[in-house]
């Protein structure tokens, strides 16, 4: 299990390729579930030029770990990877990666869904969008 909260860009597919190779070697992996969240150029009726992600260092990692541990008690998982960015983010860039490896697809897919859903409600991140006129606004949790 790895939880990584980082400021710089990351390439989800390169990260996954490395993990997959290592996990595939065990011969135990039958299913990989992946979610990648990327920054759209439009949200809540407005053109979005970019985003700044604020977080609560320490609490963020702690709660992401808890979410992944909870998933590990509910489903049979071989491994879990979560990468989440903070700081400035450009449109089209990945913001979050959740990946789960399991023997069976139900475990991988349901755990992946659970982790991203729980992350959205429990991990202390806050998005501030930069709009077309360079105005900024905090993202509404309902949007």
């Amino acid at each position, binding site marked *: 299990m790895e939880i990584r909260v980082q400021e710089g860009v990351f390439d989800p597919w390169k990260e996954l390729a490395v993990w997959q190779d290592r996990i595939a070697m065990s011969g135990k992996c039958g299913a990989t579930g992946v979610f990648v969240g990327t920054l759209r150029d439009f949200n809540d009726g407005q053109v979005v030029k970019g985003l700044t992600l*604020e977080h*609560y260092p320490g*609490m963020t990692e702690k709660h992401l770990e808890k979410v992944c541990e909870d998933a590990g008690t509910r489903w049979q998982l071989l491994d879990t990877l979560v990468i*989440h960015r903070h700081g400035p983010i450009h449109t089209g860039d990945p*913001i979050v990666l959740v990946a789960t490896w399991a023997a069976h697809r139900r475990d991988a897919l349901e755990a992946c869904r659970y982790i*991203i859903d729980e992350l*959205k409600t429990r*991990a202390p991140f806050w998005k501030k969008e930069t709009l077309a006129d360079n105005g900024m606004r905090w*993202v509404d*949790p309902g949007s």
Partner: protein
Amino acid sequence: MSITVKFFASIREKIGKAEDIVESDKVSQVSEVWSLCAAQPKPANLLAAVNQEYVTWEHPVRDGDEVAFFPPVTGG
């Protein structure tokens, strides 16, 4: 008693500071930490954490605690 208080996102902007240190024996719960630091009514949907765990408004605070106030989270 000494308590570290943190503010994040829109709450940080409203309060005008990211961190505060409360040195007082008059605070016994989270709501009192807010009143002392913020000098304004509690916003709707305000969340609070003590030592990086979500807590209720009435949660007790102790010497050395880290208390944080922030709006609903929007990660992912």
